[in-house]
Every structure is written in structure tokens, then in C-alpha cells.
């Protein structure tokens, strides 16, 4: 199997992470923000896989499984919060949830 060069694979992971971060900062809709966070998590997972395959270690895949579990739990909590906010504020706009401003 032809191996992907480490550097290119890492650039892909960084790009994915940056896209996710940009999505979190720029999108105002909570659902899209949650999806962007998922992208960021996947980017991190990808980075672990690449590193694991580069050094031939199983740790990278183990970490990816952890991240997968974490992402599932995070989505469960995040969606519940979004539903509560939707009930309270009648909107999914994250900027409307600014009651704690100083």
C-alpha cells in the first residue's frame, strides 16, 4: 500500500482543523457550530492516525477511539443544550444567548 507522505497528511489535518475553527467562530447557528466542532475533533483524530501509522504504533488508533467516544458524548450533551436554548430563546442564534455579558 502506497503510504501518504506525513507532511501532506498533516497539512490536511491542519486544514480540516482550521476549517472547523473558522466555522465555530463565524457561524451563528448553534447546529452549525456543533458540526464545526465535530470537524475539529475529526481533524485531531486524523492527526493521531497519521502519527500512529508513521511510527507504526497502535497508540494513535487507540486515541482515535477515545476521540470518537468523546465526540459521541459531546454531541449528546450539545444537542440537549441546543434544544433547551431553543425552548428558552426561540432562536438558534448563538449571539442571542449573551445574557452573561459583563
Amino acid at each position, binding site marked *: 500500500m502506497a503510504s501518504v507522505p506525513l507532511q501532506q497528511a498533516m497539512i490536511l489535518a491542519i486544514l480540516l482543523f482550521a476549517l472547523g*475553527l473558522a466555522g*465555530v*467562530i463565524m457561524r451563528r447557528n448553534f447546529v452549525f457550530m456543533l458540526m464545526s466542532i465535530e470537524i475539529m475533533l475529526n481533524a485531531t483524530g486524523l492527526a493521531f492516525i497519521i502519527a500512529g501509522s508513521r511510527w507504526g504504533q497502535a497508540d494513535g488508533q487507540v486515541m482515535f477511539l477515545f476521540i470518537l467516544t468523546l465526540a459521541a458524548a459531546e454531541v449528546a450533551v450539545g444537542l440537549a443544550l441546543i434544544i433547551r436554548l431553543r425552548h428558552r430563546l426561540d432562536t438558534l442564534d448563538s449571539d442571542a444567548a449573551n445574557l452573561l*455579558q*459583563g
Partner: protein
Amino acid sequence: MAQTIWLIPALPLVAAAVLMLTGGRLASRSVAVVGVGAVGLSACIATIIAIGFMRAAPAGDALSVTLWHWMTIEGFAPTAGLYLDPLSLVMMLVVTIVGFFILLYASAFMEGDEGYSRFFAYMNLFVAAMLVLVLADDLLFLYVGWEGVGLCSYLLIGFWYRDAANGLAARKAFIVTRVGDTGLMLGLFLLFTQLHTLQIQPLMQAAAQTWPQGSSFASLAALLLLIGACGKSAQIPLQTWLPDAMAGPTPVSALIHAATMVTAGVYLIARTHVLFALAPAVLLAVAAIGAATLLIAAFAALNQHDIKRILAYSTISQIGYMFLALGVGAWSAAIFHFMIHAFFKALLFLSAGAITMRLHHEHDIFRMGGLANRLPVAFWSFLIGSASLAALPIITAGFYSKEMILSAVWTGGGQVPVLWAAGVITAFVTALYIFRAVFIVFFGEAHTEVTGRDLVRIVLPLVVLSVLALVGGFVETPGLFGGVTLFTRFLASVFPPTPLPNGQAEGLLLAVAVLISLSGIVLAWRLYSRPAPQFLAWTRQPAIIAWRHFFLSGWGFDWLYDRLFVQPFLALVQFNRLDAVDSFYTGLAILARWLHRLLHDSQTGRIRWYAGCLAAGSIVTLAVAVLR
């Protein structure tokens, strides 16, 4: 017998604690029973102990009971102990018996006041503290009582605290007496560091052995104690608080500011008379302060128109007599006058209260008038008190005590005839000012209508004190009037004998005393009973009016102290508002507020902004970690 002495101060203390803890939830009847009963009970115990003491004097003519050891530090082990000798016995009897009758009177006088329970709590606390003061065998324990009575005085002057003026008078009394207390405290420090004990009897022996006559340490210690005594006893220069202290209820003025607390300074000097005898210069200062005070206060009393202020200045003046007697070494004469003064001044205050409570609390003597027929009980008791104060010859007690002081001053202060002259002139002015009040209040036209009726609890104390103010003097009479010396013989184990004149000088002095007193009364009758038009015209001259205002204000001492101490102090305070120490801490506060504003703007409440900041922060941290 000796083991029960502690009950005497303890009973009023327990009553005070009970009344304070119940906090006004008791019915006013039970408050009166507790408040008056406790002092009555301790008066009974005091009387029983006194009778036992006089029948069979204990060894050394003194009883000493150690209650407990206060603390034990290396070289310093003060005890809380009681010491009963003839001097403290006299003080204890006066405090408990006069105190009981004043409290009995107060139970009717204060009826219906919302602070009825609070009043009796403070009064009982006062009696307890005063008894600690007179019975203490250690100067430190005495100081506890000394501060206790000062506190109660403050609380009771400001008893009707809703009127801001009363609170001001209370603060003034507290602060002015505090000046004296500081002197006393420094005196105690000096005595302890030099003589290593504060127990009064060993202290006096040590002082007499260690310090020669007129040594500078003895003089300094005596001077510091004298400052304390001046503050408490309202003598010049610390006398300004007493006239304002009349803001308190009348029974308070009678008990605290006439009969007992203000004479604590006299007691202190008499108690430490061995020390004062070692400092002749200070003793002369005591006499000079007494002479100046009695003269100044008597002229001030002559021009007051508030009945209680007349009596207040009169108290200052009479305590001046006691100081004068102490200053010439006539210790027992001072204590004799203290006792008689407690009787007639308490009587005067109580009858003044009996008048004002029937006249809608009118205090101005020019708005009274013609009360002799309408208030016979108050009239007769006030008249008896005035006669005793004016030293009406032979029949009143005041005559014997004042005569004793004047003859002692004549012999003891022979080098300084000014002292005797001041005493005699004041005796004349005293008769004049008090009978001025009598004629204006009880004779002439009526100005205010009388309401209410005489209560038994008001009349009984007046009658008892009237009898005491008349016959109390027969325990000590001059040679020409029987030569009874019960009082001085009783105090002989405490005080050295007072040299008194005999033969021709005695007769001459008696004649002067009789003449002075009678002429004062007659002049008062001529001037104030039916004032002649010439006299009225004379009093209305501008120069005379200016003098009258000067005397009315108590010789302008308040004005002077306001300029000398209060204003500079306030100016200093004003200046000090922006001082350097403060500005550092204010600067800290300003910096904190400024930083707060800076961060405050970053807290937008927008989650995207936070996420962005988090990312930026992580990037910066990573950059620092990687590129370093």
C-alpha cells in the same frame, strides 16, 4: 460577716444582668421590684455589716477579702479584692442608702417611659460599678469601677437618645472625663513601675518608705492622680461636662452627677492621701483648684435659669469645697462634706424633679413661680435642701460640714489666706444663688399650671433625705456646739487628725460662718422676693448684661475649649482626609477599578467571541512554546 461583703456590689450587678437579658420583656412592676429591690437588699446588707463593724471593729480597723486572683504574670499579680475600712464604709453606706431612695423615687418618676427596664439596668450597673470603686483594695480593680461608672454616666446622660442634643452631651461628658482617665491611667503605670504593686495599702506604705517628702516621683504620681480626679469630679479645667450632663433624667442627675460618681475624685484623693501628703506642691494645687472651681461655679450658678443647671453648677462648687479641704489636709472634713452633700444635693435634685414632673417638664425657673402653696411637699424638701446647701446655722447639716472645712482651711492653709477668703465669699454667693432659686420658684406670681398628684414613692425619699439633710450634721459639731466628734473618731484609723482652731478663733470663725450664710439669704430675699425697680434697672445695663451672659455660659470655658481644642482638631481632621497613607490605598482601589473596566469590556457574553479568544490564546501559547 466579712464573707458577705461581695454580695453588696454583686446584687445590683445581677439585677442589671437580669434586666439587660430580659430586654424590656418584663412588666414594669417586676422591673421596679428587681431594680429597686436589689439595691435595697444591698443597702440592708451594707447596714448590717456597718453595725457589726462599729460594734466590734476588726483587727487593724479594716476588713480585707480577696475574691479571686485576676491574673498571674511574672511580677504582676493583681487581685480582685474588697477592702472595708471606715472610709469605704462611709462611702458604701451613702452609695447604697441614698442610691436606694433615689431608685425608689425613679420607679415613680420614670413610670411610663418606654426605656423603663433599660433605665433600671443602667442604674443598677452604675451602683455595682460605684461599689466596686469604693470597695476595691487594688487600684487596678478601682479603675474597673472608675471606668464602669463613666460608662453608665455616658449611657444615662444620653438615655433619651432620640434627641441629638442629649447624645452630644453624653459624648462630651465621656470625652472630657476620658482626658482625666488618661491621667489616672498614666499615674497607675508610674506607680506600678516604681513601686511594683497596685494594692492600695502596701502601695501607700511603699510610697512613704521609698519616696522622701516632696520627691519628684511622688509629685508626678500625685499630679497624674489629681488629673484623673479633676476629670471625674468636674473640677477646673475639666468641669465643662457636668452642666451639659443635666440632659439625663433627674434621678440620674441626683445619683450620678450629684451624690456619688462626681465625688469619686474626692474619694480617690482621700484614699491615696499618704501619697498626696508626700507632695506638698500638688496638695497646694488641689486646694487652689478647689478654691478656683468653687468661686467660678458659684458665680455661674447665680446666673442660670434652668433649675437643674443651677444645681449642676452648685455641685461643681460644693465639690470644690471638698477639694479645698483635701488640699489643706483636712481629709475627714472632705469626707464629712461629701456625705452631707450627698444628702442635700440628692434632695435638691429630687425635689426639683418633683416640681418639673408636675409642670410638664418645665425647667426654667422664671416660668415657675408661686409654687409654695400648690406643691407643699416639693417646697418644703427644696427649702430644707437649700437651707442645708446655704449652711443655715445650727439646724442644718450643711452648716456643720461647711464650717468644719472653713475652719480647717483657716488653720491648715494659714499661709494662703486667699483660700479661706474664696471659701467664705463662695459661702455667701451659695446662699444667694440657691435662695434666688427658692424665691423665684416658690413665691411671686404663678406662670405654669400644676398637674398630677404626689405619689408615695416620690414623697418617701424626699422625707427621708430631708431628715438626713437636717440631722446628718450632728455626728460632728464644733466645740462651741457640743463638740461631738463621732465622725472624725470613726475615721481616725484612716486619716491623721485635722488641726482645728479652738478658743477665740473658733468663736470668730463660727460667727463669720453664721453671718455670711444669713446675710446671703437675706440679700436673696431682698433682691429676688420682691425685686426693687432700681435693682431691675441695674441688671439691665449693657455692661451688666454682658457679665451675666459671661457667667451664664460658665465663664466661657466651652467657647475657649471649642477654639483651643475642638476647632483645631476638626481642622486637622479635615486636613488629614487626604493623607499619604490613605492615598496609597485609594490608589490601589483606583487601579483595581481601572483594570476591572478594561476586562469588563471583553466579557461580551457571545460564545463565538470566547471561542475565538480561546483559539487565539492557544495559538499564542503554542507559538511561544515552539519558537522560543
